[in-house]
């Protein structure tokens, strides 16, 4: 005799996910597939289909430069965020417990504050008459204001700051999981603090590092507002390239090809990060 298999009381039927699955299929997946179709039109008016001209144009010297430059921007921002974020996360765990909630609050605030507002602040900070220039001039370190706004350096600093919470939160979580006894054990075995940091803390925090890097990287390369307000009109990254094709030139097919190239690149980067993440988890868990 066999009884009917029924759903355990602790589980819910999978069909509960179907409304969202259907909605995502219709309103998320379908549009992305549409990009593929549209990208093969050869003209902006979308009358002739079946040409790879847009793809050729996307991946020609210039398109590739924009793409690589965007990725390079992501790498720069991620590296800077990592250094700053790791220092903060490391110090966080060594802070008096009273201070910790305050720090978490300070980290979270920008995460939930409008990105336009945060970027706006950096215009004030980096401008020719901005805080940094005034400070340096008051100190007598420079005579004429430095150009910070609309420069690569300014953009990297701004983006690193804007995306910093995305780095810090996973790092704190990862570092908190590390048994504090391990560093004591390492110290008792004669390792210097720097050795302990290099050989114990960093390897064990790797999953958090990778999670933070993934979030920061993907946020940095897609940060349209910061790129446009701080980078200015002279720097061209994928998001602005895409926006320009759509809004000023109405070249939907080309924009579609750009979008897909960008999407594919991001998916590739994410998969890479995920792979590293899996490796590092195996590493960190022994």
């Amino acid at each position, binding site marked *: 005799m066999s009884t009917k298999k029924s759903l355990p009381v602790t589980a819910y039927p999978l069909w509960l996910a179907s409304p969202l699955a259907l909605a995502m299929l219709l309103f998320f997946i379908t549009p992305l597939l549409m990009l593929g179709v549209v990208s093969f039109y050869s003209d902006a008016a979308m009358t002739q289909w079946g040409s790879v001209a847009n793809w050729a144009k996307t991946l020609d010297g*210039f398109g590739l430069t924009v793409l690589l430059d965007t990725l390079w921007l992501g790498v720069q921002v991620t590296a800077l965020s990592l250094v700053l974020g790791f220092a903060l996360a490391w110090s966080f765990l060594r802070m008096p417990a009273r201070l910790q909630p305050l720090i978490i609050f300070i980290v979270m605030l920008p995460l939930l504050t409008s990105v336009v507002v945060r970027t706006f602040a950096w*215009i004030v900070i980096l*401008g*020719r*008459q901005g805080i940094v220039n005034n400070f340096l001039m008051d100190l007598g370190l420079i005579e004429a204001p430095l*150009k910070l*706004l*609309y420069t690569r350096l300014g953009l990297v600093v701004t983006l690193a700051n804007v995306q910093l919470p995305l780095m810090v939160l996973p790092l704190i979580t990862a570092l908190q999981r590390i048994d504090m006894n391990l560093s004591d054990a390492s110290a008792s075995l004669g390792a210097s603090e720097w050795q302990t940091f290099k050989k114990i803390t960093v390897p064990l925090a790797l999953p958090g590092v990778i999670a933070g890097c993934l979030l920061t990287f993907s946020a940095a390369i897609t940060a349209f507002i910061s790129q*446009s307000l701080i980078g*200015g*009109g*002279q*720097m*061209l990254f994928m998001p602005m*390239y895409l926006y*320009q094709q*759509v*809004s*000023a*030139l*109405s070249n*939907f097919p080309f924009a579609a090809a750009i979008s897909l190239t960008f999407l594919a690149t991001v998916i590739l980067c994410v998969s890479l990060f995920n792979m590293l993440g899996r490796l590092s988890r195996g590493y960190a868990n022994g």
Partner: protein
Amino acid sequence: MTSRRQLLQASLTLGALQLFPGMSHAQAKRLVFATFTGSWEEAHRAVLVPAFKKATNNAEIILDPMLSVDQIAKVTAARNNPPIDVMLHDPGPALTAIDQGLVENYPVATSANYKDLIAEAQEETGPAIFFQVVGLTYNPDKIKTPPTSWKDLWKPEYKGRAGITNLNSTLGTGFLVEIAKMFGGSESNIEPGFKALNDLKPNLAAVAANPGALATLFQQGQVDISPGNFNAIQILKARGVPVEFVIPKEGAIAFKTTIHIVKNSPNRELAVALIEAAMSPDVQTKLMQSPYLVVPTNSKVKMDGEIAKVLAKDQADMKKRFVFQDWKKINEQRAQWIERFNREIKL
């Protein structure tokens, strides 16, 4: 207790209904006027909108400031259900919009103000409501000797202090054509223009996305010299920002700005009312005065004040002093130029 709870629930339900469009039709009636960014938006918000409201018994209007090219892109994308009712165009985009059949002819026969426009402004596809004048803008606090020529932008002393806009704006494109001419080119030979732009790179502090953004760069002290729109800086100047406008010796670039009813607009009557207000001597007079200093097209408006002093005594004088460009030729190549600008002027 129960009643308070019920009240809360009822109000939440009502609130939820409000969230969904279609249940309230208020939005459908709003007239959308795509004006230009920066000073134009401020001028129109301050002068044109009140006049329009007065004429239409407080009809709702939204200003959507954007570049001409963006307006065309938006309307092209949704021809049957245009997101814009009234467009404002520089000569180049105006030709494009007309060619692509995006605009509707203005009902000139029934218009009260159309016949008062100067001859050049009378266009059935969309009357011109003002002229724009592009010259050199500079910060008198930082630049003691006023520039006299476009060529001054290339002076080594302005290293890292000059600004331009990209070619999406008429200002940027017009400037490119002008410097091409200056270095021996023309509308059909843009090469010298690009070469000159490349040489300008060391001096560039910023490439603005639109003329409004260029004006803000002065406000922030980010640039000290740039090609600029006469009007764009007037409001800044009125606020005490140190900026001055000069006409270079090569002549200022001028173009008329036309206003159009978008085809398939559901708000045609309101659109006509707005354009009628924009042509009216009343509005044009107010716009001509400080701080807006908009060059009028209505013959009943007599040029005076700052405009008469700096630009031209009257419309006839203007035609003599200003350089007009061949936008038909420019249009044919503009997309290519934008592409090329993207590639070459990128740092």
